[in-house]
């Protein structure tokens, strides 16, 4: 009997086609992932930003990687580009402050232009700030210090008539912007230097209008028009962003780089390998799995800097736990006992290993000029045991088994949670359970207070104490501990209306100390940013808020 198959010719042809496909298909694929050849001698600065770019829409933005790109392509009245990244005039040339410190009159730089050549006028700022209120985002609340802004936003949200005339944002002429605050804000210029306060170019956004706001797609090239030292010329999803020097930028002569390329790579190992191979010159945040090893080996280019953020445990202070049990953490003594019995230096020396300063206070020391915290709680097991006994749990007896929550995508927190379990067992005789959940569930559990103890972090948004202390106001929706203290609220209210900087810091110092001593949170360590910078890169100063003055960055030959 012969083989029953007669159609072997077809099969052969099929296989041939199969084999020929990859080369055929590689051509279009490669044109989209290949590196563009650079003009001879021009310096392209390639770097790996933290994770994906989530959005470049000023209204929606909240991630540090998005801000990092925004600082290169946009500019506000002031920019965080001065000495020590203090705000310095950028889109404005000067500002006048009224004697009651409530009215700021900004004089715009006459030669400032958009990337399409249009002049930047005061109306562009008014438009952008109004848009922040009309279509609110995570950082809209920063504008609420402006007179009438909060009421305007609330009225819009409630679908009531809202009159923007009542908001203290006025373009008195094309080159003058007048802003009136509800109360003096000592750090207002720092806010002004933050992207939510940057101007936008309305004519180029018009095609994207949707309801009261705009579709975020207005930020994509070629439509996007910006006013910063660079322009976004190419953005390929999950692949790269290409930023070219903006010839229309008012200070274009001082911009050193001809182009910047933001490379996407969120794999710790491959990031480092790319750096080693010279394919990128800068890794903004070296992942926690690789960074300590680079530090231990003193790798060239590896640098660290204390960050403007603290890693801490948040303790649920409600009288009842989510399960309905009585919450032992409602007792300040229990919280203090938990805080006093953690050997934090073990964690920084063996787990995080980046030379993080052990935290006894909420606010990272030395990150705010002129501000020092009062000392917090240290490591004192004896006192912890005493406090626990006073609270009715001698030697930990009768203490319920409570869970410590962490987000499982973060291996560092997973390890810290396991160490805490061990330390509390050893030092206090209390058994804890650890509970890892993926990140969105984690966020929901924290914000709905459906947790007992959770491993969280807080990074300051603008360089002032209030970016930390406001979180624990009774009324704050960031107050995940649900710790309510009228005295604390009072101190902060007093500080908010205090125009004298020194006195204000005194009030805030006392408030911060209440957090450190009453323990709605247990600070563990202050973060350290680890980055890799190629020695050929100049003008990059690493700093607590991981800001980059893109104008100054250059590549040495």
């Amino acid at each position, binding site marked *: 009997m012969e083989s029953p198959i007669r159609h072997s010719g077809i099969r052969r042809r099929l296989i041939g086609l199969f084999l020929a496909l990859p080369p055929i298909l590689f051509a279009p694929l490669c044109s989209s992932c290949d590196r563009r050849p650079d003009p001879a001698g021009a310096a392209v600065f390639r770097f790996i930003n933290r994770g994906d770019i989530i959005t470049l829409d000023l209204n929606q933005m909240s991630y540090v990687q998005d801000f990092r790109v925004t600082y290169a392509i946009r500019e506000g009245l002031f920019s965080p580009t001065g000495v020590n990244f203090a705000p310095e005039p950028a889109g404005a040339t000067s500002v006048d402050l009224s004697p009651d410190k409530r009215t700021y009159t900004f004089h715009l730089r006459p030669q400032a232009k958009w990337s399409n050549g249009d002049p930047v006028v005061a109306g562009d700022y008014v438009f952008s700030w109004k848009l922040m209120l009309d279509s609110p985002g995570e950082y809209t609340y920063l504008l609420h210090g402006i007179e009438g802004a909060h009421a305007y936003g609330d009225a819009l949200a409630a679908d009531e008539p809202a009159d923007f005339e009542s908001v203290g944002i006025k373009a008195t002429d094309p080159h003058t912007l007048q802003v009136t605050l509800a109360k003096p804000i000592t750090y207002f210029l720092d806010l002004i230097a933050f992207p939510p306060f940057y101007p936008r170019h309305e004519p180029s956004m018009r095609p994207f209008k949707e309801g009261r706001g705009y579709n975020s797609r207005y930020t994509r090239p070629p439509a996007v028009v910006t006013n910063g030292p660079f322009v976004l010329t190419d953005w390929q999803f999950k692949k790269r962003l290409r930023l070219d020097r903006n010839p229309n930028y008012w200070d274009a002569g001082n911009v050193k780089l001809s182009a910047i390329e933001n490379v996407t790579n969120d794999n*710790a*190992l491959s990031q*480092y*390998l790319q750096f*080693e191979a010279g394919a990128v010159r800068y890794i903004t945040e070296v992942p926690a*799995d*690789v960074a300590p*090893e*680079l530090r*231990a*080996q003193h*790798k060239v280019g590896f640098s660290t800097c204390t960050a403007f953020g603290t890693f801490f445990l948040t303790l649920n202070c409600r009288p009842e736990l989510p*399960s309905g049990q009585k919450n032992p953490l409602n007792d300040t003594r229990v919280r203090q006992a938990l805080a006093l019995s953690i050997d934090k230096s*073990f964690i920084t020396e*063996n*787990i995080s290993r980046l030379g993080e300063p052990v935290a006894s206070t909420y606010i990272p020391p030395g990150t705010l000029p002129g501000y020092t915290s009062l000392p917090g709680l240290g490591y004192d097991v004896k006192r912890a045991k005493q406090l626990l006994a006073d609270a009715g749990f001698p030697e930990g007896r009768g203490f319920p*088994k409570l*869970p410590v929550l962490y*987000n*499982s*995508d973060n*291996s560092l927190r*997973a*390890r810290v*949670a*396991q*160490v805490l*379990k*061990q330390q509390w067992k050893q030092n206090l005789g209390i058994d804890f*359970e*650890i*509970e*890892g*959940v*993926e990140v969105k*569930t984690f966020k929901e559990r924290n914000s709905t207070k459906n947790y007992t103890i959770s491993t969280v972090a807080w990074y300051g948004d603008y360089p002032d104490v209030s970016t930390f202390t406001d979180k624990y106001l009774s009324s704050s929706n960031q107050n995940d501990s649900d710790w309510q203290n009228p005295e604390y609220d009072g101190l902060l209210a007093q500080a908010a209306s205090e125009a004298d900087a020194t006195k204000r810091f005194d009030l805030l110092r006392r408030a911060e100390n209440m957090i450190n001593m009453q323990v709605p949170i247990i600070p563990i360590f202050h973060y350290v940013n680890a980055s890799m910078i190629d020695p050929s890169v100049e003008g990059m100063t690493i700093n607590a808020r991981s800001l980059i003055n893109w104008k100054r960055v250059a590549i040495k030959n």
Partner: protein
Amino acid sequence: MNRGLLSPRIIIGGGVLALVLLACLIALPWTLSSASSIYYDGQHGDLVRGVPALNPAGWFGYDTLGRSLLGRCLLGGAISLMIGIAAAAIAVVVGTFVGLIAGYTGGWVDSALMRTVDVMYGLPYILLVILFKIALETPMTDGLERLQHGNWFSSAQAANLIVMFLSIGLVGWLTMARVVRGQVLALRGLPFVEAARALGLPQRRIFMRHILPNLVGPITVYATLTVPSAILQESFLSFLGVGVRLPLPTWGSLASDGVAALSPVKFYWWMLLFPCLLLMAALLGLNFLGDGLRDVLDPKKDAGKL
């Protein structure tokens, strides 16, 4: 048949598997006792990332928290194998049930069930497993908490394991259902079954006597092959951080820790090597055993029906 059952594939596969399994099980009293030096959660601050040493607890070195990797690998093996077996059991029970009903009943029941299987095959299972796990874990924890109201066991830990079995078993039964249905259809047409029916034997008896015994072979083969794939799926979930709860180890989570410790600057080789070696030994054993059993029990099986 005897010669076949003792085929080298089965002996070697089964032997390696039995060795690993026995080691994991025998060690349980030690790996679970906090007094032992290979206690799975016994952290030793001075041994953090310790290299392998000569004392038994240090044979495999120590992990990032100074825990004996030997203890964690052994307990991790027990848990991984338990997950594999439980998921395979779910696959066997559900798959056999569905396959039998579909194959035996025929008609619209058959096509309804088989279309369901088709639909489930059409779903991206990784996405489905993660989604399923995330969606079910919270209600399961709450349910268990309400059910026991006390402290017999940790509701969260139990819910985590149950959901893990379910979500892995969720996709495993599809193949089983197809195989069993195909086998039943084939058997129904065979002369001896026709004869039994012609003799007027009761359906039940035909089923128990003639159909079921003939299904044991393919079911065993597929069950053996489902275990390794379930273990690998758990390792993938651990890699994504939605696996078994820490500090409980599994081979998958240990391997994933090992990969995280992999860097060109400093290579903590023992953290990757030992869990992977054990995992590989067990999975190779299972696969060999499965292949060997298939050669023996199921020589004419319809390999096309995946």
